[in-house]
């Protein structure tokens, strides 16, 4: 498991070693890139892509951020699909920074996305940023259930066998901050997969109240690294 090089600060996570675990009896793998792989279902799940974020900010008269986050995110997704060969994809909400951002995609980025979707069963789950149908292929759903596991954008407090996103959890270990998966065996929260996304420390009450005892934080990076989910206000943030 020991890697000899620091993880790339920016770039394509290579996913050398995923972390296998079970949720509601299903054998899943947390990939170091932040994607979830369910091999038995040939399914790849990613959350909070926030495609078109820079375009949305510019449209609103804000800053003109480097307009490269969509291709960066798509290239990460491309790598994850290449590696897993998944036939089904769930984008777990907030895939687009808003509905108009989906229409405003750069032509090259749009073609890239279509190429990734081609020949795959592709499901867009609605998020709070992209509630409503977007003008790209695939199917659009509020939530979806596969073999007893429910996939939705925002976790429902009492739910079991649930996979969600929305919170962009992150944690710090050994002085390094990383986005992370959170799981307590009943539910799983995915990290944000998009390039221009921040995070919420997993000791935040919003997250610690959702997760049951013995929860794990699985850090992304060069390898998927599980640690007990930090609970108390972490002074190391």
């Amino acid at each position, binding site marked *: 498991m020991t890697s000899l090089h620091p993880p790339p600060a920016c770039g394509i996570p290579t996913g050398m070693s995923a972390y296998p675990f079970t949720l509601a009896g299903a054998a899943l793998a947390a990939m170091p890139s932040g994607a979830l792989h369910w091999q038995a279902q040939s399914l790849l799940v990613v959350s909070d892509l926030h495609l078109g974020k820079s*375009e949305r900010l510019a449209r609103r*008269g804000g800053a*003109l*951020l480097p307009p490269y986050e969509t291709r960066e995110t798509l290239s990460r997704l491309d790598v994850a699909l290449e590696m897993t060969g998944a036939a089904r994809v769930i984008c777990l909400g907030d895939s687009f920074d808003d509905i108009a951002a989906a229409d405003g995609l750069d032509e090259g980025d749009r073609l890239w996305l279509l190429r990734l979707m081609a020949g795959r069963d592709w499901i867009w789950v609605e998020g709070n940023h992209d509630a409503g149908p977007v003008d790209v292929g695939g199917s659009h759903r509020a939530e979806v259930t596969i073999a007893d596991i429910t996939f939705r954008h925002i976790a429902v407090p009492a739910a079991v066998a649930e996979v969600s996103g929305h919170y962009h959890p992150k944690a710090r270990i050994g002085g390094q901050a990383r986005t992370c998966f959170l799981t307590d065996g009943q539910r799983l929260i995915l990290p944000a997969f998009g390039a221009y996304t*921040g995070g919420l420390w997993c000791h935040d009450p919003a997250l610690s109240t959702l997760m049951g005892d*013995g929860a794990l934080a699985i850090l992304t990076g060069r390898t998927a690294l*599980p640690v*007990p989910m930090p609970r108390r*206000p972490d*002074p190391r943030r």
Partner: protein
Amino acid sequence: MALLPPALSDWFAAKGWTLHPHQRDMLACADSGATLLIAPTGGGKTLAGFLPTLAELGTKPEAGLHTLYISPLKALTADIRRNLRSPVEGAGLAIRIEDRTGDTTYTQRRRQRADPPHILLTTPESLGLLLSYEDAPRMFQGLQRVIVDEIHALAESKRGDQLMLLIARLETLAPGLRRVGLSATVEDPPALARFLSPRGCDILHADPGPDPDIQMLETDAPPPWSGGGGRYAIPAILEQVARHKTTLIFHNTRAQAELFFHDLWLQNSDDLPIGIHHGSLSREQRERVEQAMVAGALRAIVCTGSLDLGIDWGDVDLVIQVGAPKNVKRLVQRIGRANHRYNAPSKALLVPANRFEVVECIAALQAVRDHDLDGEPRGPGPRDVLCQHILLTAAAGPFDADALFAEVTRAGPYADLTRPEFDACLEFTATGGYALRAYDKWQRLLFRNGLWQLRDPRTAALIRQNLGTIIDTETLKVRLKRFGTPLGEVEESFAASLTPGDTFLIGGQVVRYEGLHELTVEVSRQPGRDPKVAVFNGTKFATSTLLTQRILAMFQQPSWPELPRHTAEWLSLQRAVSRLPEPDRLLVESFPHDGREHLVIYGFAGRNAQQTLGLLITKRMEELGLAPLGFVATDYATLIWGLEAVHDPAPLFDADTLREGLEGWLSGNAVMKRTFRNTAIIAGLIERSHQGRRKTGRQATFSSDILYDTLRKYDPGHLLLDITRQEALRGLVDFGRVEDMLRRVAGRIDAVRLTRVTPLAAPLFLEPSRVPVEGAGRERLMQDAADRLMQAAGLA
């Protein structure tokens, strides 16, 4: 020569005041387009600046703004207003004098824009705001004179660059505007004059007064081997405080001031009233100290650069500098804080904080005696400031690019700006300047009817919110738990290093860290306990090139009669065991110690450059399989520890490889990312983070590091990366000084292999702020920590 109104001359005469020669000179130069006055502190410099204004306004002036006075400090504007009002009111002149700062009320500000006073006192940032409104031309059209006080201090930062752009703008609105700069003693007056006005500027020198009475403080105990506190000298310092009326005790960092103040009180058996003043204390606390000082209720103030400028403290008769002064010019200016009476020698004492600083203090004393002042030449005007200026201009109304370019080059720092450089900045503000033309639809500035203007006029408010070039480090407030009493602020990075139970000092008291609550550091009082973690970050100045050169020259002496015996013996021992560093050679020692291999590079390039050198060399060592584990840098050396001995250091210092390292290292280093962040905020790419916004938008906001990495990957030629690289030559990265050192050394490297720690290297082992190397070792640590945690939780 302009004549003062008779009523004013009479009032001066009644007070028994006569004008100093330089004050008369200023009146004689009243019609000059630009004048720079260089005068020591206490020389009546500010009044000299205003005399021509008072002469022109006369007894019954017409309405309208006549003179704009700009100072770097808010506090100074209020002080000057009081000082100026007494002669004006005493002589019965109908001159309206007002100040306008961030503290001025909304109603007052509105009124000032509609009906400006004759003399307006303000700061660069407030002037920027005034100029960002559409009615600026009306307010400033009759302006006659602009006075820039403490221009030497402003010229040291981007605030000065911005101010000169604003003054160029003012001159467009008020043709014939005269510029006046008031400065303390500087090393290169003509350069400062060009900064103020590139098209010619008169320079006036006031009598510099007698040389200061300055010495190194003799103590019974020799200074310790390392550390920066100077606490060993407290008994001797208390003795000096008791013997003088009022003493200012300067420290180089806030943390050192805190530690010193805490220990000072433990030893203050006479209960001398002594206060503390620095930029991290709450405003209430600072004001209390200032008021007590003005009232003469304090015998001493432990302080930092926060008292370098500003209010005339009256009765200060001794300045003590604790820790090496790092910079001769600042030392001279600090010394000037004592004996604010003209023609009385200032009295000052230097207290070296450790053995090495004894050498530095003696070198500084010699430089002061020789009137040898240091200073790095200013670089060209920074382009991030220009980007902000273009946005500010757009906020005020549509503009013509040719006219704006012509105007900008009338500002000293931008006199040599090329049109392509200007156009690249304009392009950045309009479209983002990306290779991928993504924002044609959403341009920030549009070109319409021959003029550039905001696409959405509502964004002017956003531009105003982000105005200014001072980038606050992100700080967290410190409060007493349960009581909620505010104590001050600490930097986020310091707060991040705390674990509950850690104790640290703030405002002179020891507090215990309880936890973070809503972006506030909660603490409880912990009286009588030694602080465990004592350092919170503050500005660290690098020792100037001039001082390091003087130190290296001193090392070449056969003996050191001017040094205390303990220090001279230390240097002799180093010479016997290894060798002493030389001006045009590079000494590199290597030795094993405590199971690790060590490498010491005596570059004498100043703290920031030695730090950069540490990062570059350890990166090279990592590539060569020398497994470096970490390093620590001081102003004169970098100490690296690792697993493998370095027998031939020469290949590590190849200039081209190091320069490549800087380029490659650009991708990952935190210092570089911080440089980028500052540039991105000033240029208007990202907004300043306000406390409130940080709190609510944590999930949505993301770090500027991500933008930096993205630009590096997809748009490496982008303007902001170019500016960031240029910034890296000075400031925190200071690569320029690494290059200077390599040029000076020209390959003459003395590699000395030893069996144990050398006398000169020993203090380095006691230095704090060690930097771990992010390499193979760091990843292993993370894995180990994870494994331990999993095991402890019974999960592995």
